[in-house]
Structures are given as structure tokens and as C-alpha cells.
């Protein structure tokens, strides 16, 4: 049901369930049983049908199922879900359809069904190739289980796979991070994401390490309820110090570049042509619709999001919070999202959109950070982007782009 005259749209579906919460995770997800998942998916399909009716002028270019752990869905559940999408929306025949996948939750047979249902890109949340580190994070899988799942995915025909990695983990050394990087790259995925662990408020790690990341303790009692008994009792080592953390971070870019992965966003690396189209929609401020619990949308400078409370969502998914983005907000977002990409923000595109050069609006800030070496202006292409040093402290700089 594709149509060239329709406007492009990214579709996000949220699956807020996992086997158990990881200790660093502050995403909207929670452990569940089969019945709960089934009821939720029924509700989600109703939402897809109803929203689809309102988006007949759009064509789904990318689809992304995030969570939680979407791979907790049975093959049949996923197939029904995607059938509902196709029945309700116009979809591009060359769309990028991604699904997040937790190693240790799936097998070759299920993956084959996923593939047949229309998923053509998998995103594996591996985080580390070191089983000790995985245990400290509260992950439910081992490196070996990942390898089995990954190879199965290749066998059943997935040709576009991402692996998520995390550095600066409890107990991690530069050597073990290097090992993880090398081993992950050896699988030859098309895409890699590498984040530094962020200690988020409201997570067990926050209670353990605090905002200043300094804690080091036996965590009996603090996260004993984090899940499986014998892991909950483990003593969790300290986070790497700042010097090691920076070393890991800089190593990442170098190693991945050597292996043929180019950084195209602060934490994202890909082989040429395999940049994640769906994520680029967010950074380039194109239209996307998010469905499911707490999912966020932006369509035509209208931002809205579904309720985050499960009971409310199950009761009435049509309620959402909406905000119209004025010119100021649009300009700010163009900068703070666009600069995340290595390509930066094009002044020509900016001027076309806002009738003013970004220098007219941000002249002082841009000049200041260029003179300090944190921003770079590429005159031939008319693009403003972070320098290597600027990327390290991007937040600090981006906050100055709020007007």
C-alpha cells in the first residue's frame, strides 16, 4: 500500500516489558507475565488501527519496535502486530523495520518468524562480551547466548544488525572494553552503538553510586530485589575512574574506525549506507509517530506523547499530552538535535527553514565555541558541527543553544 505522493513518517511502537529490570535502566519497562503482555498487545493493536485512520496521508518509511524487550513477543504476536500496521497504514516497500532484541530471550525459530513477519533489522542489546560485567549490570544473558542468537539471526536472513555496547561499566578495565569492542566488531554487524554508562536517578545504580559515581559497596539489600537471588547478592565493584572512562571512550572511535565503522552520531557507528534511518528521523526533526505506553511523537511541529501509566493507557489510549512547537523551540531543537550528528547542521537548510542564518541567531555562541575549538564550521559545505573535543562535552555546549 505504498504511495509516492504521501508524506514520510517514522513509526515507533513501544513494548514496555522485560524479564527483569537491569540495574542501570530507567526506561519505561517492567517485568510482566504472558497474560499482561497479551492484553497490552491487544490494546496496542487497537491504537494502531485507530491512529492509522488519521494518518492516511502518510507513508511509513521506518518502523522501530523498542522497549523493554520486544523479543519477548512470540512469533505469532509479532506477526499479528505487523499485520495490523500494514492493514492500518500505508507502508514503504523499502522500509527499515527494526526490532530490539535481548540475547537470551529468543531462538532461531522465533527469529525466522520475525524476519518473515517483516522485520529486516535487528538491534541486539549486548552491552558487554564479559560475563562478569553483564552480571553486575543485571543483564539476563551471557556472551555465549548472544553469539548463538546473533548467528541464528544471520542464518535466518537478517542482513542489517546493530549491536548495543556500553563502556564505563562497574569493574570494567580499558583492556576488557577493548576486548568487548574487538569481539563485537568480529561479528561484523552493520551498525554499532557505544554509550558510556550513565547513572540515572531512580535506578539501583543511582542508589549505589550516587550522582558523583563514587560509591563502591557490597550491595546486599540495595538491589537484592533486582532479580535472581544469587546475582542480587553479588558485590558490585566501583565504576572506572575518570581517566579510564575517557580512555575507553576515545578508544572506541579509533578501534571502530579501524574496523570500517564511521561515527555518524555521538554514540552511533555504521558501515557506509547502514546508518539507522529511524534514529536519523529524530535528529533531523522529521515526522514520527510513537504508539504504545508513554510513546513520544512529533508530527508537523506538534509534539505529543501517550500516557506513561499503564492503567490509564489500558483505559484510554487516546489521551495524550500535546505541545505545539513555536519557532523558538523549532530553532533550538534543530540545533541541539542536529549537532548530535557528525554531519552537523547545514546553514543553508537552516536558513531555508527559518529565514535567517544560524549566525544571526547564535553568532556569539558559535564564534565563542569555534574560537575555543569545540565547534567547527565547514565553509565549503556550510555545515556547523562538533569538533572531537566538542563532542566530549556536547551537553555543556548544546545547553547554550537554548534561547
Amino acid at each position, binding site marked *: 500500500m505504498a504511495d509516492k505522493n504521501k508524506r514520510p513518517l517514522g513509526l515507533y511502537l513501544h513494548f514496555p516489558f522485560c524479564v527483569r529490570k537491569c540495574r542501570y535502566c530507567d526506561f519505561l519497562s517492567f517485568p510482566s507475565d504472558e497474560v499482561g503482555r497479551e492484553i497490552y498487545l491487544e490494546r496496542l493493536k487497537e491504537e494502531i488501527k485507530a491512529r492509522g485512520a488519521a494518518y492516511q496521508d502518510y507513508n511509513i518509511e521506518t518502523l522501530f519496535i523498542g522497549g523493554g524487550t520486544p523479543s519477548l513477543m512470540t512469533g505469532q504476536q509479532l506477526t499479528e502486530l505487523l499485520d495490523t500496521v500494514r492493514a492500518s497504514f500505508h507502508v514503504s516497500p523499502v522500509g527499515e523495520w527494526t526490532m530490539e532484541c535481548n540475547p537470551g530471550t529468543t531462538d532461531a525459530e522465533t527469529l525466522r518468524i520475525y524476519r518473515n513477519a517483516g522485520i529486516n533489522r535487528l538491534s541486539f542489546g549486548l552491552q558487554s562480551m564479559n560475563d562478569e560485567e553483564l552480571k553486575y549490570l543485571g543483564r539476563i544473558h551471557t556472551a555465549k547466548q548472544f553469539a548463538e542468537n546473533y548467528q541464528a539471526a544471520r542464518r535466518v536472513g537478517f542482513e542489517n544488525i546493530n549491536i548495543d555496547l556500553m563502556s564505563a561499566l562497574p569493574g570494567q578495565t580499558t583492556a576488557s572494553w577493548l576486548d568487548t569492542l574487538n569481539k563485537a566488531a568480529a561479528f561484523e554487524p552493520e551498525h554499532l552503538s557505544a554509550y*558510556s554508562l550513565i547513572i540515572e536517578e531512580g535506578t539501583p545504580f543511582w542508589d549505589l553510586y550516587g550522582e558523583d559515581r563514587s560509591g563502591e559497596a557490597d550491595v546486599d539489600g540495595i538491589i537484592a530485589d533486582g532479580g535472581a537471588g544469587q546475582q542480587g547478592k553479588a558485590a558490585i565493584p566501583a565504576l572506572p575512574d575518570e581517566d579510564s572512562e*575517557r580512555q575507553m571512550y576515545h578508544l572506541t572511535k579509533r578501534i571502530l574506525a579501524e574496523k570500517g565503522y564511521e561515527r555518524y552520531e555521538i554514540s552511533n557507528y555504521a558501515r557506509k549506507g547502514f546508518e539507522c534511518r529511524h534514529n536519523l*528521523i529524530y535528529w533531523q526533526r522529521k515526522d514520527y509517530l510513537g504508539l504504545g505506553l508513554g*510513546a513520544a511523537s512529533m508530527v508537523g511541529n506538534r509534539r505529543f*506523547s501517550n500516557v506513561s501509566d499503564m492503567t490509564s493507557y489500558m483505559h484510554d489510549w487516546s489521551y495524550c499530552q500535546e505541545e505545539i512547537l513555536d519557532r523558538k523551540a523549532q530553532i533550538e531543537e534543530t540545533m541541539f538535535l542536529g549537532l548530535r550528528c557528525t554531519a552537523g547542521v547545514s546553514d543553508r537548510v537552516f536558513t531555508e527553514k527559518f529565514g535567517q542564518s544560524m549566525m544571526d541567531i547564535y553568532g556569539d555562541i558559535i564564534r565563542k565555541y569555534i574560537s575555543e575549538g569545540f565547534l567547527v564550521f565547514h565553509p565549503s559545505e556550510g555545515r556547523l558541527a562538533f569538533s572531537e573535543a566538542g563532542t566530549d*562535552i556536547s*551537553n555543556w555546549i548544546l545547553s547554550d543553544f*537554548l534561547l
Partner: protein
Amino acid sequence: MHIDQSKIRNFCIIAHIDHGKSTLADRIIEKTGTLTSREMQAQVLDNMELERERGITIKSQAVRIVYKAKDGEEYIYNLIDTPGHVDFNYEVSRSLAACDGAILVVDAAQGVEAQTLANVYLALDHDLDVMPVINKIDLPSADPDRVVSEIEDVIGIEAEDAPRISAKNGLNIEDVLEQIIVKIPAPTGDENAPLKALIFDSVYDPYKGVIVFFRVREGRIAKGTKVRMMATGAEFETVEVGYFGAGQYIPCDELSAGMVGYMTASIKNLKETRVGDTITDAENPCAEALPGYKKVNPMVYCGLYPADGAKYPDLRDALEKLQLNDASLYYEPETSVALGFGFRCGFLGLLHLEIIQERLEREYNLDLVTTAPSVVYRIHKTNGEMIELTNPSNMPDPSEIEYMEEPIVSAEIMVTTDFIGPIMDLCQERRGVYLGMEYIETTRALMKYELPLNEIIYDFFDALKSRSRGYASFDYELKGYERSELCKLDILVNRENVDALSFIVFEGSAYERGRKMCEKLKEEIPRQLFEIPIQAAIGSKIIARETVRAMRKDVLAKCYGGDISRKRKLLEKQKEGKKRMRQVGNVEIPQKAFMSVLKLDEK
């Protein structure tokens, strides 16, 4: 309406802080039916929000009460409430001058304290008859007999028949009311002599102008009386006279000798009606003013700056309004390289400073940056000139200075004997000169010290409290100036002198303070894009250094499934944080760093 002087009693209540002064005032008002308990808001006399919250009296207040005594007669009681803190000693003394007697409230558990003594001496100085009352007899730890002998031994006044009460529970308040008739003398003064009235307070009212509170010593004042303020020379035609109901002004025809009341005369400026001045009849003036008027000089100065530079006019307006009600507040514009436009403000003491600061923030909704408080130093220059220095930044070049003097106070510290050692150590550290010690009883002593004022304006109260587990009490008065070895300590952030952080310090403590200051600032200044040296210097000599390391990482993680609002919130929070900082050179210094000088002794 004529009231017989013999039926009037003008008195105040004096007490150490927390001994129950305001509660007793409330009970007296309640018992005499001036207000029903239903109308009664706790502590009627403390009518500023801040006063109620802190449980202290800042402004003097007065109330007229009619008491029907057991002898069948009706008496008029004028109760004049006085500020209870040393900072407001001058205001206290003016209030006392309007009275004929004082009720001394002493806590039945704690007994005589430093401010009890200070207040009693002040009352005796004004020839007031002092009537002791033992309060809080309901406390389990109350020991009224001990306190009675303490009052008799330490203060030397008869206390055997002192009413033993619980103001909180309303116990034996009648005894107090009855005893006032006997123990507090009736006023005297010739009603037919020329007008002579003492101003003990004034407040600004937006509708009526300044409302002047006074006690008529001689003569009479009525609506239409043309009055002259003897010290300022200002003349006004009286628009209204009256007395004080609870929480309201009640106009009357005339006030005559012995009475306490107020007047209005469309007076626009509080400065024309100084507390302590004498009001007389402009057409029939008295020969000489009542003694006691003196100009109060601020003891402590600091810079007040709006956190948001654009709020400067708001701050000026707010200070103007506060000064209408507080003539002892002094301010003049000043500028700081680090903080921009603001005001150098003078206060009676540190509590006064805190109160003004809090009122500005609360009542006027201003976000303030306060610089370290400074006392007034006297600088004797080589050219024979003497200047009074209120802002460390204005200190002349050391080569121009012959010598410097700093203000010294006489301090009395009352402490239980267990803590004499620690308190002596504290006073020693603060350059105190020990003058002597008196034992009040076997377990308590009164220690006398001379201390430099600049050693007690920072955190002396806190240190005193913590080293005595809260048992020490403290009172001081300015003694005079003494020569001292002082120097100006400058703070350099990223090699730039931050004027708002400079302070004057005793030479012998300079190294220690400089080091602590650098350590404190290192904690307060967040990491920035480059390394920031923090140095303390005397002249061109660096005496301490710390370094704030450069920020190395500040990256936002994942995209949260397109939840951009969340990302925006993070950035906004960061931007807010930056806003609360002051740009000095290319370093951002958080506002609270400017206040950190105050808390160097905190662990």
C-alpha cells in the same frame, strides 16, 4: 476623657531569647479581654511573618490593655514589646526609655542567661523598676527555687514573691497582672508643661505616612497640634493621635503626660522622625530635649547584588521600602567587577543582616548574592588622613597605610562549667582577650572577653553553640577601636582578582583563611572547559592555591525513543545552572561561592 495618671502603668517585658517574653505578652492581652482567644493569633505583638517564624521580635510594638483589678479599679496598661536581640540594643534602649518599669521573664529551667543580665542592666540604666516573673514552671526540669536565688544573687533584686507562671498554659497570669499595680510605678509628669514626648519607634504606612510611636513625658498632644522633632528640626501638623489596640490603631482626642500612643502627620520620610528624638510643641517648645537621641551606626556591612542583573531596580525599590520601616538600614549603590550593580548595605549586626536579606528574598521575591560581611575598619594613612573602610575592595595601597584599627567588643558568655574549656579555646582562636570569670552558681559561669568584632560576625554564634552543645549564651556591646595588624586577602580565579571575594583579615590568620577559602571555592566552582587555578593572595604574594580540573565529559546518552522533551529538560536544567553563575573573566562562578566565605569553619 481624662485618665488619672495613677491608673496608668507603662512597662515592657524583657527576657533572654526563648524565655517566653512574647507568650507572656499574648497571655496578658488575652486575659484582659483585649482580644478574645478566638481573635488571638499566636503572638500578636510579633506581627511580621519573619518575627513569628523565628520567634523573635524585630520591631518594637505596643498595646494598650484595660485591666479590672481585684481592688475594683480599672487600670490602663501600656505594654511595650522590645526586640530581644543584641543587634537591636539601641531600639531596646529606646523602648525602655518609654517605660516606668519592666517585667523580667526568667525561664524556670534555664535561669539567668547572658541576655537576661544585659537586659536587666539596660533597664536599671533607665531607672526602671524590675519585676521578676518565673516562667515555664510546667517544665519537668523547672527549678523555680533555684532560679529565685539566682535572680537574687546574680542580679541582686528581690524575687521571693515573683509570680511563678506558665505563660504557655496560662497558669498564674492573674498574679502577674495584680503585681504590676504594686511593682510598676505610675507615671509622673506635668500635663500642663510644654509638650515633651519620646519617640520609641515608627513605622511607615502607605496611607497615613509615617506613624510615630511615643511616650508623653510632659504636656499634651492633640489633633492639630503643630509639633517639632527636636533633633531633626522637622515640623508637622498632627493629623491624628491615638493609642494601640491589639493589632490596630485607635484614634483619640488627646494624649497627655504619662500616656503612650501614636501620631500621624502625613510624614513621608522616616528619617525625619528618628527613634530617640523628642517631640515638642512647635509653638510652645520645651526648654530641652529628653536625653537619649543618638544616631545609630551600622556595625556590619556587606554587598547585596541581584542574582539576575536586570533586577537591580527591583532591589533598589525593595531597599527603599524596607528602609521606610527600618531607619537603621543603610545602603548605597556600589559596583563590583564580578557581580555588577548592587548595594553596599550597613546593618546593626549579623542577625539584622540576615533578617533584611531574608525579607528581601521573601517579601520582595528577589534572588540575592551576598558578599562576605565586613566590619568598619579605620585606616590611618601616612598623610595623616583617617578613612573608615566598609568595603574591602576600597582598601588603599599598603604603602599609603600608617596603621589600621578594628572594632572591639566586650562580650559576656554564660556557660555551664563543663564547657568552659572549649569556649576558652574558641575565644582564644578568635583573638579574644580574657578579662575574667564569675561563677553564677557551682555549675555556671559568666566569662568576660574582649573580642575583635570581625571575629564574631561570621560564625561565632554557631561555633559557640556547637562547642557548648547549645548551652552557652552570648551578648556583646561595642567597646571601641584598637590598633591591629590587618591585611587584605584577595582571591584570584583563573588569575583574575574577584573583587567580591576579597576580605580583610588579621595577618596571623591570613594563611589559614586563604587556604580554607581556596579549598571551599574548589568545591563550589564546577568544572569548566579548561583548568581553573584558584589562588589566595596578599598583595602580589600568592599564599594558597587549588585547581579545578577541566571538564572532560558531558554527553547525553540514548535518544529515549524520540522523547525529545526529556532531552530538552536536561539541557534546560543545565542552562538554569549556568544562569545561577556569575561570569568572571571566562570562568562561571556559582552564586553560592560568594557566600562560602561565611562558612569557612564548617566541616
